């Protein structure tokens, strides 16, 4: 469980993204953070993982939370990938050899692991960062938007890793695509533009609420999605529709 105690996060320019959020979040379930753009989903993931600190309030973590999946800032690109992986493994209490074998195994990397990371193509670096996330043992894995990087050929791989890890661990996945939330999660925290976030125990309930919010501002919409369950309420954000079409 994660207990947020009146957490506020404000940018230096004064824009408040998260205001006085007081809520308990489950860490043993697969939870989506579902909401339209600019409602603080990424900020929330950052706060939970500890990458950023709240301006006010406290976050109590009763579980071992991961960094946001695919976190690659901490890599030293002048060092070999092997050394970077070993460092992450040591910090997060895993066996360095096991982690290196795991990452090398699923990505099919061999000699590349011993060359400086700056020689590695960028897609491989991203894949490495995500593979590292799955390799480390956490109670709860945090995801911002995606469970694995780009390449459609690898989609099954990430899905498999996600499913395997979430058998025994929890996950928190920030997304603005109800389809993604439904596919990967069982419950959701719905982030809303003009109201406090709402936790829904059931993912369908959460998606209904999200779509209600999206439909509320009577704006010009682009009705394109074919697989809607509720055609009448579905006309949402232009943005949201584009994101779905592009997926």
């Amino acid at each position, binding site marked *: 469980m994660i207990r947020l105690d009146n957490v506020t996060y404000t*940018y*230096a320019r004064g824009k408040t993204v998260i205001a006085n959020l007081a809520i308990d979040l489950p860490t043993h379930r697969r939870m989506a953070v579902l909401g339209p753009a600019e409602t603080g989903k990424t900020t929330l993931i950052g706060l939970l*993982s*500890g*990458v*950023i*600190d709240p*301006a006010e309030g406290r976050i109590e*973590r*009763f579980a*071992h939370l991961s*960094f946001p999946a695919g*976190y690659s*800032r*901490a*890599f*030293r690109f002048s060092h070999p990938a092997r*050394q970077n992986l070993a*460092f*992450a*493994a*040591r*910090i*997060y*209490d*895993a*066996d360095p050899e*096991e*982690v290196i*074998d*795991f990452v090398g*195994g*699923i990505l099919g990397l061999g000699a590349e692991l011993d060359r400086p990371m700056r020689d590695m193509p960028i897609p491989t670096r991203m894949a490495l960062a995500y593979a590292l996330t*799955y*390799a*480390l*043992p*956490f*109670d709860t894995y945090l995801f911002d938007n995606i469970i694995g990087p780009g390449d459609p050929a690898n989609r099954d791989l990430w899905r*498999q890793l996600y499913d*395997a*890890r979430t058998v025994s661990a929890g996950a928190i996945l920030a997304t603005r695509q109800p389809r993604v939330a439904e596919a990967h999660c069982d419950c959701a925290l719905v982030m809303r533009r003009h109201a406090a976030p709402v936790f829904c125990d059931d993912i369908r309930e959460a998606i209904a609420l999200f779509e209600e919010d999206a439909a509320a501002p009577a704006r010009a919409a682009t009705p394109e999605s074919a697989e809607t369950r509720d055609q009448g309420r579905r006309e949402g954000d232009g943005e949201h529709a584009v994101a779905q079409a592009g997926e």
Partner: protein
Amino acid sequence: MGQAYPNGRIYSAGRRRLALRQQFNVLSGLLFREAEMRHGQSFALGYIASGIEPLVIVATIGLLFSALAKTPPYGGSLLLFLGTGVFPIYLFIHTSLRLRQPLNAGAQRQRYPAERPFDHIAIHALLHILSSAIVTVLFFGGLYYLGGVNAAIPEDPLAALSALAAVLLFGIATGICNSVIARLFPFWDVIWPAFARASLHFSGPYFVAAFLPPDSRWYFGLNPVIHGVNWFRHGFYPFYPNQLTDHNYLLGAALAMLAFGLLLEAGTRRHLEERD
């Protein structure tokens, strides 16, 4: 997929235990990583490189003084007198330079959330203590065994060590201040090394502070490092004059600087985080 998923050894430990364990993991992980590379060199070479500077200073001043055929300002050995001045001063200079690293913008961004800034400070300070201890022991040991200077083994080791500890604390505090100031005003990273190295000459490596004329002595006394140097020399020379050896002034300056640095860090943290 045949891979076995790595398992944590503390997967379901209690919260306090988890925090302790994580702290230990972060510190040991950082220690190994930072010790591996220094100045882009392997462990041993990097540390020898960082010890070269005080040795060069001792050698050049020693050469200059012998060329001028001056007698040692105090005691029987010129090299020992210079060494007892240059080593504590360089301990301060290098600490204040090196402790800028863990808090600079790059290091702040390039970290896992589990690493906190003060873990980096602790590890850099620890490694710095180790490397300077090695060089200092080699210098004074070498002077004793090879140079035949019996006074190179301190009469009062406790005084010598506590002097070094106080200078080190002052250096760490200054380093923390420097790192924050340098993030606010980047040109500080160029100013401070020049200023720190020039301060060598005002900290009394080649003169006895007590023999300065009384008028100027007061101004020299404002520099906390000179008190550290004299404190250190008391460990070697039992009858060293004790003017400008105010232990409390040095410790007070170190603690004040430390408090100032930590407050400055806490006060500007959010501003800097968002700007970078």
